[in-house]
């Protein structure tokens, strides 16, 4: 089972995490032993050959990020490189990292040790959102067990590699998950994104070369080291390697996490959830969480990987598939998403700070039936003005415009129909 489901195959149904001894009994930490006999460059090349795309949302190749990390002694200044594992999962619709942190903590620690070695990092920090208390406890316990077994600390398993690992519990705010904001937060500042360049690999935490990887990305690393790049690529249906931990929610009969080959389709995932609930008929879906543009039934058979979703004018994002039946209004769903992003804007950039609350108010007015035609023009303007990238420091605003712009493009008539006394679906007219 774990040959085809590396991330979840060994998980227990009640999410009880493995002890170190239990984890080792099923092959745990053998990948660390193997990795420490390789060179960091060989590891980067292996992950490159596996074509592991970052699972945090953007889909940037993990090996490319790692390759930017300079070997110790070649970057100016003193101090360590840093590996940061991003467990600040807060994207509307996403619940995958919660599972990996709670149920598979040694998998995360093992992946982080290997990634730290590959990026020449002597310090690793696992940032976890405050609400994931069970995850924080599980990871802390796993780190303590690994330290006691010399899988962390000085001269790990006699390899000469030193690594200190700790957990940083956060305290709310979606923006903390943005990698440069996360670095600001770890330095003790408000979590406000920074301009890139310089990229974190050049100047990150405390000005040191830093790699930030998502929990799911890190969790896949030990399996690549243990089983090889070819095996990893063969797990996928497309060019992008591995399995993907999809999270299906919204209007499906049994919402759930599903580990499936990368490139699985929305139709397959929805079927595995018992089909569409509510009216039983699909209106549209978001393939990768709140910030990803809507797709329609025509895209049910499009492979859900980063490349195919981009070609279909959406994004794989976090793989959090949000399903809307014909009885659910995409205006209302977008209103809830935008209200969230407006609340979570850090306030640093004006378009985001001012534009999102305005859009949220208009969407609420549309639902209530108090919006005017001019309001829809303002929504269109807001969506058009938010992109392309570069008008705000980070992608919070741009991401939030994903559902809004696609709502206006795909469901323009439905949006207009809201001018006539509010939501026509709620009024039973559609």
């Amino acid at each position, binding site marked *: 089972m774990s040959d085809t489901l590396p991330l979840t195959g060994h998980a227990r149904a009640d999410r009880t995490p493995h002890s170190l001894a239990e984890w080792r009994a099923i092959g745990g930490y053998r990948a660390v032993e193997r990795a420490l006999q390789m060179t960091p460059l060989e590891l980067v090349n292996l992950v490159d050959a596996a074509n592991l795309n970052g699972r945090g949302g953007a889909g940037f190749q993990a090996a490319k990020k790692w390759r930017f990390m300079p070997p110790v002694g070649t970057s100016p200044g003193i101090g360590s490189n840093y590996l940061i594992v991003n467990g600040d999962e807060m994207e509307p619709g996403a*619940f995958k990292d919660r599972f990996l942190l709670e149920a598979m903590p040694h998998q995360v620690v093992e992946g982080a040790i290997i990634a730290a070695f590959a990026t020449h990092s002597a310090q690793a920090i696992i940032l976890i959102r405050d*609400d994931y*208390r069970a995850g924080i406890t599980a990871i802390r316990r796993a780190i303590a067990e690994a330290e006691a077994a010399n899988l962390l600390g000085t001269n790990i398993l006699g390899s000469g590699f030193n690594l200190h690992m700790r957990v*940083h519990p*956060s305290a709310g705010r979606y923006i903390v998950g943005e990698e440069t904001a996360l670095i600001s937060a770890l330095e003790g*500042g408000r979590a406000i994104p920074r301009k890139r360049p310089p990229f974190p690999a050049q100047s990150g935490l405390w000005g040191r070369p830093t790699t930030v990887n998502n929990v799911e990305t890190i969790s896949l690393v030990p399996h690549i080291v243990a089983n090889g790049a070819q095996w990893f690529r063969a797990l996928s249906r497309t060019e992008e390697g591995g399995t993907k931990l999809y999270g299906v929610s919204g209007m499906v009969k049994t*919402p759930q996490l599903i580990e499936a080959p990368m490139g699985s389709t929305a139709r397959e995932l929805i079927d595995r959830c018992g089909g569409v609930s509510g009216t039983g008929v699909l209106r549209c879906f978001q393939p990768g969480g709140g910030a990803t543009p809507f797709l329609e039934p025509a895209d049910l058979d499009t492979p859900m990987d980063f490349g195919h979703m981009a070609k279909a004018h959406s994004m794989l994002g976090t793989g959090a598939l*949000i399903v809307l039946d014909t009885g659910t209004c995409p205006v209302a769903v977008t209103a809830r*998403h935008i209200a969230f992003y407006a609340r979570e804007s850090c306030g640093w950039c004006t378009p985001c700070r001012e534009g999102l609350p305005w859009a949220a108010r208009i969407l609420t007015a549309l639902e209530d039936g108090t919006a005017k035609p001019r309001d829809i023009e303002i929504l269109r303007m807001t969506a058009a003005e938010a992109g392309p990238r570069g008008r705000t420091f980070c992608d919070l605003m741009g991401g939030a415009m994903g559902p809004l712009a696609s709502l206006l493009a795909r469901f323009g008539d439905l949006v207009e129909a809201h001018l006539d006394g509010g939501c026509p679906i709620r009024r039973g007219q559609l």
Partner: protein
Amino acid sequence: MTLPEDLKQQILHAVAEDGGAKAAMLEALRLVQQAEGWVSDARLAQVADLLGVSTAELDSIATFYSLIFRKPVGQTVILLCDGASCWMNGGDALRQALMDRLGIGFGQTTADGRYSLINSACVGGCDRAPALLIGPDRRLVGPLSPEGVAQLLEGEL
């Protein structure tokens, strides 16, 4: 009341672990809140003093993070998800039931000091929508029906 010694030691440990007083500001606030439920003005000043930062700087961190409470909260904090997946699965009815039963709105605390209700998204429980987090362990509860609210508050869920 001065800062209790054990809390002080925990904060100093965080300073050593996190890479300095500034980097440990959030953890210090978390530790105070873990012990006392919220961060009072008096504690804020004492912690700032201990860390060697200004009260204003520490407060700028405290007020940035939505889960650092600068007002007293109830013994049990409920974080109710107001995200889209929870809404689609009856989140509004759950919200109404909670508000009716507790007699408070979002951001408020019951008169007897037992409960605070806060809206939050996404709580990472979309597979259990509509969902909420409750208590010091942020236990995930869901799917929760309006009828289940009474049971939840009586400790049966």
